[in-house]
């Protein structure tokens, strides 16, 4: 049952086949829509419940009160108490800690965290790995 050079024809056949590899950094790599990449944050909808902070397995998220808060609403003309405005929150994401599990995205009640397809996150400067989303 032993056949010498069993792989020979296959190998020769490959001379006429298309390349299996891609020229990656020069050719963009496409990832699937479900890919879990960098987490983006939308401050407008975040209510500061910190569910994401509690659930994160890598302690990669911080939610803090924004330095600049929206101005307090003017008292209503008829003297009733004004409707309080929503506080604004910032998100500090440590990209070097994050394991890209998207658990925070699943748990956020306001869909303020979004999983993007951004995966080219390597950097030579450590500071850039701490992203401050406002």
């Amino acid at each position, binding site marked *: 049952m032993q056949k010498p050079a069993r792989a020979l024809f296959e190998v020769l056949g490959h001379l006429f086949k298309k390349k299996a590899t891609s020229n990656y950094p020069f050719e963009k790599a496409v990832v699937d829509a479900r890919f879990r990449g960098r987490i983006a944050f939308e401050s407008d909808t975040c209510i500061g419940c910190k569910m994401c902070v509690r659930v994160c*397995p890598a302690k990669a998220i911080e939610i803090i009160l924004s330095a600049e808060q929206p101005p307090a609403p003017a008292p209503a003309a008829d003297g009733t108490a004004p409707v309080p405005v929503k506080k604004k929150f910032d998100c500090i994401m440590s990209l070097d800690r994050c394991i890209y599990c998207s658990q925070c995205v699943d748990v956020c009640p306001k869909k303020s965290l979004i999983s993007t397809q951004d995966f080219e996150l390597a950097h030579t400067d450590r500071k850039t790995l701490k992203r401050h989303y406002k």
Partner: protein
Amino acid sequence: MSKITIPLGPQHPALKEPVNFTLVLEGEQISGSAVNLGYNHRGIEKAAEDRTFLQDIYLIERVCGICSHSHTTCYITCVEELAKAEVPERAKAIRTLVGELERVHSHLLWLGIAGYEMGFETLFMYTWRDREQVLDCLELVSGNRVHYGINTIGGVRRDITPGQKAEILKRVAILEERTKYYVKLGTEEATVLARTRNVGLLPHDVALERGAVGPTARASAVKRDVRKDEPYLIYDKLDFNLITHNTNDVFGRLVVRVLELVESYKIIRQVLDYLPEGPIAVKVPAKIAPGEAVNRYEAPRGEDFHYLKSNGTDKPERVKVRAPTMANYPSVSYMLDGGYLADVPMVIAAIDPCMSCTDRAMVYDNKAGKVRVYGWDELRKYGIEHYKKRGVDFTKL
């Protein structure tokens, strides 16, 4: 002939992960061997104790990069058992699907490594190219190629759409075609036969005695597969064969793995056909009822075993993982004895060792530059002494 003892590893070109073998050589032949583990110890079990059950999924997933789904599924089944959660049938089917895709990717990876170890790098290049197909399927289903993160307590996180189903079937058809070629190549090519036949012999009774698991055991004609012995998920509804071989050598392990690929394709098709409608997850409270659970899972390398103890909080009290490679190491030293030095990498690779799975529970003392393994009694004594020095006396306990 005089005997000479040499170390192989922890850093060695033929080893992908750090492990050390002490080999006693008589000329080219090995007359004794010992395995030393512990170079990859990361304290995962301890770390699991101060994370919540949900966070532990992502930690346990990182026990191993190849069989990440095996570990999480095994762990999560323990959690769900304690929480008495009814996992929906669709979630079970998706878990099975990912589990089998993982087996395909792991076996193809092994086949490539085996080709590489035997000096047949053409095989390595082809299998790893084809493996991309199954990795793409995994990315399609879960979002990532390696750490799928598809499991969550009570079900799975992502559903399967009809479009994905078609795409998976398309890729499985390509893989099936290629696997047919590998079956032929593996059993007929002179290089493969010369390097694998009668190498690393593990007779049937020794395999039983040393508790070999997975393809290593099945190549010694041991009919052992958790999917058949104690069906979990939806394996009791699926029709597949338990592959065994009776040559007891590396060649047998190769045949078992390649034929298992064919079985996995069969399973994937059946699961996609079966896929019942319904929800993909149920809600499970964060606090898990107190109790203990153990579970077994047939990982690509063999039986994976998880133990979980909960004390009623949202964090586990104890997690214990016994990975398949650990169970196979006693057999490795038997397989190496009497063989040739040149075959050592082949024999070690044949159990498909995964050090990151295995190294989690070793105790070493590095005092005076000497490595020392503690036995239970010594360890207990050491612990008591240590705390006595700090003013706590445990002797009466």
